């Protein structure tokens, strides 16, 4: 009898404990739609933001972008910069640990950066860290990796020497190319360190499971130095490249957050979901490049006329429903210290005046009504929105300037390989999204020595000289002024017609707290929480 009573009491006790603990243990899960499958979890081999979203939850660099997108201490608690701006000394947090409990050391950072620059790694973004001393030489196989300007002072102190002062260096360090790798773990698993079970990470989360094209699950990393402030237990990333499918899954409440949807959905989604629709201007520009190697695009009057005749307000409001904003400069708004980017003179004119002026300019150049016929081919990469833009621009050029316009579209790989290999064209669509928040990242595209990205084949020695000077300039304000002068040349010459500043489109359920729209488009899950 006593035995039975004891058993009963134990059962009740156990039951209530279980009940209590199941409530206490109710997992907080964030379901994140991601617009594609990460190509790798090895940050030497990734190049786009949807990969960054996963990687930044797993790994933490010396500095990070906080919830508002500003640079903040990450694995490093503090840093010092030498007076000449070329030596950065980082103090790594004493309590910074890998998910296996081992300490994060200066050597882990040195190891990772040497690996990125090692030509054998073939890292796609190795050039981002070229401001580090000897990085370029190492990456091109002209110097051994030991020559890289990254030095271990002691286990928790790292010294990075630069080729020249680089005011945006902390922005570069916030990028995934500068993330650490646990050296001990890499020596154990080699390139297989990215697999669930092998991976050891130092971010707020650690990898639990990964089924390509289905889901990638990360769980809270209890060894993380700031684990006490991480409110989410598990984040599941769903790779969904079909934007309409992602929206349906958000509407079915299967996703709490999802990235990227078709601009033509904005109106409907806003009507149904209000503030859950986030349209954030981003540091990226949508533009049309003119092939300056051949007539008539070698004539500044023709380029200016074509650029003027494009009604950017129409593209923005009618095609993108306000998801992209009219732009007249290559450098987007919102660069710290740069102010409002230089605008071409016609930006202040009305569209009707612009068109009149454009007709005049073309006539001067001998084209248009009464002159030589203007036959233009617009090339763009296959995409519904790009097609609509090209159709609209073709119509504008046709009605305003009497041009004959044809359209050619290729898939993204073919389109860019054609441009990169120097294929001749008339007008080609391109876009650029900032790798780091600095105007230099945009303006360096059109330096004449840039064989890869200078699609218009712009060649202005004055422009090249100003950019070169900006690299040498230590004073932040003066440097920005040099860059502004360079961009003033660019907007006057119009080797390319900036059309729109792009925006990042997110759907964020009202269950999710802590979400702050920001131009860097970084949204670490550690800053978020999910209510029931």
């Amino acid at each position: 009898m006593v035995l039975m009573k004891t058993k009963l009491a134990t059962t009740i006790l156990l039951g209530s404990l279980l009940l209590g603990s199941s409530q206490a243990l109710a997992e907080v899960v964030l379901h994140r739609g991601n617009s594609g499958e990460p190509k790798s979890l090895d940050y030497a081999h990734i190049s786009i933001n949807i990969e960054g979203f996963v990687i930044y939850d797993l790994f933490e660099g010396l500095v990070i972008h906080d919830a508002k997108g500003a640079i903040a201490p990450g694995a490093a608690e503090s840093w010092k910069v030498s007076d000449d701006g070329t030596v950065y000394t980082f103090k790594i947090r004493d309590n910074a640990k890998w998910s296996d409990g081992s300490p994060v050391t200066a050597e882990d950072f040195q190891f990772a950066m040497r690996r990125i620059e090692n030509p054998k790694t073939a890292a796609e973004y190795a050039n981002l860290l070229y401001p580090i001393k000897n990085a370029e030489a190492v990456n091109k196989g002209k110097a051994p990796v030991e020559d890289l300007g990254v030095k271990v002072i002691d286990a928790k102190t790292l010294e990075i020497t630069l080729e020249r002062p680089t005011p945006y260096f902390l922005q570069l360090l916030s990028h995934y190319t500068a993330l650490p790798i646990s050296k001990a773990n890499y020596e154990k698993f080699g390139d297989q360190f990215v697999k669930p079970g092998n991976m050891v990470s130092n971010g707020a989360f650690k990898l639990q499971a990964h089924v390509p094209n289905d889901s990638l699950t990360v769980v809270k990393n209890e060894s993380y130095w700031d684990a006490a402030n991480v409110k989410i237990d598990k984040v599941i990333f769903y790779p969904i490249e079909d934007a309409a499918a992602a929206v349906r899954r958000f509407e079915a409440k299967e996703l709490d957050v999802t990235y990227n949807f078709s601009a033509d959905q904005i109106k409907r989604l806003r009507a149904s979901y209000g503030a859950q629709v986030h349209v954030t201007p981003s540091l990226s520009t949508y533009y049309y490049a003119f092939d300056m190697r051949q007539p008539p695009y070698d004539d500044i009057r023709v380029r200016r006329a074509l650029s003027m005749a494009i009604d950017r307000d129409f593209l923005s409001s009618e095609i993108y429903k306000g998801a992209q904003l009219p732009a007249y400069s290559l450098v987007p708004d919102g660069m710290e210290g740069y102010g409002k980017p230089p605008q071409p003179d016609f930006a202040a004119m009305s569209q009707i005046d612009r068109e009149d002026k454009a007709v005049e300019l073309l006539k001067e150049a001998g084209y248009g009504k009464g002159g030589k016929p203007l036959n233009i081919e617009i090339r763009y990469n296959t995409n519904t929105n790009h097609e609509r833009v090209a159709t609209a621009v073709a119509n504008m050029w046709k009605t305003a300037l009497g041009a004959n316009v044809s359209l050619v579209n290729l898939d993204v790989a073919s389109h860019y390989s054609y441009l990169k290999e120097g294929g001749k064209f008339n007008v080609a669509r391109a876009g650029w999204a900032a790798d780091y928040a600095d105007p230099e990242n945009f303006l360096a595209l059109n330096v004449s020595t840039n064989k890869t990205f200078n699609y218009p084949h712009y060649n202005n020695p004055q422009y090249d000289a100003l950019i070169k000077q900006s690299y040498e300039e230590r004073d932040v304000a003066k440097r920005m002024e040099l860059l502004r002068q360079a961009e003033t040349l660019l907007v006057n010459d119009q080797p390319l017609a900036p059309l729109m500043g792009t925006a990042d489109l997110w759907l964020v359920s009202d269950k999710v707290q802590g979400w702050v729209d920001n131009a860097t488009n970084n949204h670490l899950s550690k800053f978020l929480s999910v209510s029931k």
Partner: protein
Amino acid sequence: MARVERKCSARVYYLTMINFVLRRLASAVPTVFLVITISFFLMRFAPGGPFDLERPLPPETMANIMKTYQLDQPLWIQYIHYLGNAVRGDFGPSFIYKDNTVAQLIAQALPYSVQIGSTALLIALVGGVILGTTAALRQNGIIDIALMSVSTVGITVPTFVMGPVLTLIFALILGWLPAGGWGDGSFRQLALPITVLALPQIAIIARLTRGSMIEALHTDHIRTAKAYGLPSRVVVITHALRGAMLPVVSYLAPAAAALLTGSAVVESIFTIPGIGRFFVLGALNRDYPLVMATVVIVAVFVIVFNLLVDIAYGLLDPRVRHD
């Protein structure tokens, strides 16, 4: 005496059959070889490469990558390498999904496609045959006309319309079924993609069955069977259906190969991690090894199913000889 003869003819039959299968498998080798060769060169002549991205890579980095993946070698050497490795079952690393070899990706994705594809095929076969037979037995009646009208809709409405519409109704408005994802892999979770895959197949199989059933019902041996007073259920199921199945069976080979190797559209709409999505993503990204492997798999499935159909033909119709 008769028994010995029967035994003998059975033995001869099986030997002929084995001989037939072996010959067909042997002839499949050059076919697969041809498929590999043509796709290898077609793929390489498509403009753009696996590392031509919206944000092109600096030349030095590109050179490093080309070297790593041996893309800097002459095309014919790459081709010989590929063939040599493929024979040993090594399809190489994926250029795009770099954490995995192509074999790993396929091994992971193929079972998903096969699972929903085979379920859809089974449903389509059973549903299609039942509906087709029902329609044939009531030729030109209201049921026949209704079934055939509905099946026309099933064939003509494309999956990329059917998928979102069914999701809208069953996931968003009624909230009965999930809108997508593999989830726990339960039938409820996968009901929508399976339905969307199966619907056009049900329609096609129903029409095929109806046509050949009507024909079969008018043949002499069926009329004779009826005249002997056999119950009509027996006549239809054991006699007429057997002959009526021939066109359906020959349709099943390409249908099964297509269904089991994944529908890119359905897998994208419902975010199923199958092989169809890899095929499209691989092709768009010029992931040569991934595309090659998926092409080889589709080819093998087509060959195998064609063979199975030819065997089934012999079983269904004694007039078909495998020599």
